[in-house]
C-alpha cells in the first residue's frame, strides 16, 4: 500500500510538472507579456523597463525555474485585468465553481447509478429496460453549450422557471448544473451499467445465487465491484467536468474559474491564465490521485499489494 501510494503521488507530481511546463511553453511562445501589461501609448523603453521589472527579459530557462519556484509558493504576477494577485482572483471564483461542479457531479452520479441499475441489472424474469440508455446516447451526443442554450431557452425564457444567468440565488445553479451533468452522466452511466453486467456475469454472482441469495442482494454485491471502474471513469471525467465548466459557465455567465479562464484567455491576461490553469491542473491531478487512493481503499487486491 505504501509503495503504491508513493508511486501514485510520484506520478501525479510528474504529471503536474509536465502539464505546467506545457502551459509555460505555450504562453511563452506567444511573445513578451510586458507588451500587454504596459499602458497604451507606452514607448518601447517603458515596455522594456516593465519587462525587466517583471523578469520577462531573462533567458527562458531562468524564467522557467523562477516560474516553478513561484508556482510552488503560489505566487503569480498580478492579473492584468483585475490588478490583483492572480491566484487570489482565482480563489475568489472558486466557491462558485465548486458549488456548480458539486451539484453537477451529484446529479450525474445519481442519474448514472439510477440508469445503471435500471438497465444493467436484469430482473429475475429476464426483462430489462433499454430505453434509459437511449436517453444516455442522446445526452452523449448533445454538446454542452447546446444543452445550455436549450435549457436557457426553454426553462428560462419560455417557462421562466429558473434564472438563466449569474449566481444570484440558490435556484440559479439548477440549469447550469443540469447542463454540466449532462456531459458527465453518459460515460458514468455506461461504465456503471457495463461493469454491473460484467460483475453479475462473473462466477461469484452465480455463487451468491447458488447459496440462496435473492436477486437484490446479488445485485448489491455486484454493484460494489462495479463501483471501481466507475470511480476510475469519474476521475477521468473530472477533466471533462473542468472543461465543461469552462463552456457552461460561459453560457450561464456563472462567475466561476472556468469563465475566468475564458475571459483571461480572451484578454490575454497572461498571469491569470497561468494561475487559473495551474489551479485546474492541480485539481484534476489531485482528483485522480484521490481516485487512485480510493481504489486502494476499496479494492482489497490493491490494498494488500506491496
Amino acid at each position: 500500500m505504501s509503495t503504491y501510494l508513493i508511486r501514485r503521488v510520484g506520478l501525479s507530481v510528474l504529471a503536474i510538472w509536465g502539464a505546467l511546463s506545457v502551459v509555460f511553453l505555450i504562453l511563452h511562445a506567444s511573445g513578451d507579456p510586458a507588451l500587454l501589461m504596459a499602458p497604451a501609448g507606452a514607448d518601447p523603453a517603458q515596455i522594456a523597463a516593465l519587462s525587466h521589472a517583471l523578469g520577462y527579459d531573462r533567458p527562458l530557462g531562468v524564467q522557467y525555474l523562477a516560474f516553478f519556484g513561484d508556482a510552488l509558493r503560489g505566487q503569480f504576477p498580478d492579473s492584468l485585468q483585475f490588478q490583483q494577485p492572480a491566484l487570489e482572483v482565482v480563489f475568489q471564483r472558486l466557491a462558485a465553481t465548486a458549488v456548480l461542479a458539486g451539484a453537477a457531479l451529484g446529479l450525474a452520479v445519481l442519474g448514472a447509478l439510477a440508469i445503471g441499475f435500471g438497465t444493467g441489472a436484469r430482473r429475475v424474469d429476464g426483462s430489462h429496460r433499454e430505453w434509459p440508455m437511449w436517453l444516455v446516447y442522446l445526452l452523449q451526443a448533445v454538446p454542452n453549450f447546446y444543452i445550455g442554450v436549450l435549457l436557457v431557452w426553454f426553462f428560462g425564457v419560455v417557462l421562466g422557471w429558473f434564472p438563466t444567468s449569474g449566481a444570484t440565488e440558490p435556484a440559479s445553479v439548477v440549469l447550469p448544473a443540469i447542463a454540466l451533468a449532462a456531459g458527465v452522466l453518459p460515460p458514468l452511466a455506461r461504465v456503471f451499467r457495463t461493469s454491473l453486467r460484467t460483475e453479475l456475469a462473473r462466477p461469484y454472482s452465480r455463487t451468491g445465487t447458488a447459496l440462496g441469495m435473492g436477486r437484490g442482494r446479488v445485485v448489491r454485491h455486484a454493484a460494489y465491484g462495479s463501483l471501481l471502474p466507475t470511480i476510475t471513469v469519474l476521475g477521468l471525467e473530472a477533466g471533462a467536468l473542468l472543461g465543461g465548466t469552462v463552456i457552461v459557465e460561459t453560457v450561464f455567465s456563472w462567475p466561476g474559474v472556468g469563465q475566468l479562464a475564458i475571459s483571461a484567455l480572451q484578454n490575454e491576461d497572461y498571469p491569470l491564465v497561468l494561475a487559473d490553469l495551474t489551479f485546474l491542473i492541480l485539481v484534476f491531478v489531485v482528483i485522480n490521485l484521490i481516485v487512485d487512493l480510493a481504489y486502494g481503499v476499496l479494492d482489497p487486491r490493491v490494498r494488500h499489494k506491496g
Partner: protein
Amino acid sequence: MSTLLEVSGLNVRFPDTGVLAVRDASWQVPAGEVLGLVGESGSGKSATGLAVLGLHGPEAVLSGSIRFNGEELLGAPEARLRELRGSEISMIFQDALDSLNPFRSVGAQVAEAYRLHHPVRKAVAKQRAVEMLDRVGIAEPHRRAKDYPHQFSGGMRQRVMIAAALINEPSLLIADEPTTALDSTVQAQVLELLADLQREMGMAVVLVTHDFGVVQEVCTNIAVMYRGRVVETGNTRQVLQDGRHPYTRALVASVPTMQDEPGGTLPTVREVVTSLVGPIDDEALADPDLRIPEGREYESGLQPDDALTTVVDGALLLSVRDLSVTFPGGLGKPARDAVQGVSFDIAVGESFGLVGESGSGKSTISRVVTGLQAATTGQVRFDGAELSGMSRRSLSRRIQLVFQDPYASLNPDRTIGDAVGAPLTVAADGTPALSRAELRRRVEGLLTEVGLDPELADAYPDQLSGGMRQRAGIARALSVEPALLVADEPVSALDVSVQAQVLNLLVELRRKRGLALLFISHDLTVVRHMCSRIAVLASGSIVEIGDSADVLGTPQSEHTRALLAAAPDLERVG
C-alpha cells in the same frame, strides 16, 4: 436406499444460439451417495448441474422433470428455489478464484451463506463460519476469516468455497469440476476433503468431471454424457471396466495409464468406436440405446516402439548447466527465483520429459531453452554453441516450441497457411527467398504431414477445432526443420479424445524425423507415455532425474512419490 434427486427427460435448450445443451437426460442420486457426471467438454455436464438449482438465466429453456425428495423443482417458484439453494442443495464451481467475491473477506462470505438460511445475529454466524473454515482445514481460521480471497492459494480458496456451500449441511452437493483448476497434489487433498465431509454429513454428491481417474476414486455411480445425452449410467466399476456403450468404452481406452506400455500409439475414440460398431457418425454415436455388439472387443493396436522410449546414446544436442532464472521484483514486489541450478542434457533424437507442479519452473526452462527468456546465471549450449551467442534467426532454425494453448498460439487474423509459412519466408542465411508457389507447396506438405487437409491453408483459426489448431501449431514448429522440439504442456488444454491424437502425432513425427523432444507436463501418465528420461522439478530445482521407468517405478524423492500418489490413475482391465 431412497432416491434423493431424480432427473428425468431433462432438456436444456438455448434458443438464441440454437444449442441443445442437454437432451432427454435421466439419472438419479440416492441419498448419501456420490454420482459422477462425466463427459468431454461441451457435453452438457454443467448445463445439467445448473438446471438442478435453477441457475440458468432466462435465455435457457428447460423441460422435463427434476425431483428433489419428490418435490418438482423445474418450474418451482423462485422463492422456493431460493430456500433450497445453499441449505438443501449446494453447488460449487470450477474456478475458486472467481467463485468467491473478491471484495469481501472469506469469513463474511461464509457467514453470509449461513445467515441466508438462519435468522441469527452476525456474531453467531461469524462463529459458525470460523468453525466451518476450521473443519475444511484452514489453519488459524479465526485470523484467516478476515482475509480476502486473493490472499489464499487455489486449493485454500476451493476449501473456503466448500465451507460456504456446506455450512448449512445440505443433503445434496453438486460439485462442477471442483478440482480441475488445481494442482494434482492439491486436487487429491480437496477430493479427499470432499469425500470426508460427504461421509460425515451423509450428503449426496453429484460430481461433475471429465477425469475418469477421479471418478473411479470417489464415485459409486456414474453417468456418461456425450453431445447432451446421457449415454450410459451405472456402477462406476462396471461402467469403467466393462462399458456397454461404445463411446464409454472408447473414452476409457484413449486415456494413457500407468499400466500401458510407453511410447506406443494410443487408441483414439474414433478408432475404438469404429472397431466396435463400424463406421458411425457422431450423432448416431450419441444414441443412448447403442450397445456394443456381444463379443466385440477392441483389438488393442498398441505397438510399443522400444527405439523411442529406451535411452539413446546419441551425440549431445542440448546441454543445460546450472541454469538459474530470477525475475526481478518491481516496486514492492520481491524478486522471484523461478529456476535454481538446473542441469540436464538432451541427446540427438532423445525424448526428455520435465514434470512438476504448477509454478515449479517448467515453462521458464522451456522459454530459456528457446531463447524467449534470458538465463540469469548458468549456461545453455546447443550443439556445442552457447545459446546466448546465437542470433534469434539462426536459433529459430534449430529449436522450436509447441505451445500449450492451441487457441492463442495462432493469430486469429491470419490464415493457417500464413502462420505455418511465416518462418519459411525469413530467408535462412545464404538461401534464396522462396517463391510464392514454392512456399505454398511447402505449407501444404507440412499440413499433410501433421494430418491436416492441405485445403485448410486458406482457413482461419476460428474455423478449426482445438485438436486441429494444435496440429497447425506443430506444423509451424516443424516448418524450419528444427533439431529440437520443445513442447510445453501441448495436450493439457485438450479433451482426452483429442489428446490421444496429438500425442500419437508427436510420437510419429519423432519416429519419422528423428526429432529430439523436450516434453513438459504435469501429468505423469502422459510424460511416462512420451519420454525415455524424465526430470522431476520442484520449486525451481530438479529433485530427481533419470530413466523414466526408474524414476516412476522406484521414486527416490519424497516429492516424486507425492506426485505419483496424487495422480488418480485409471485401472484398465487388460
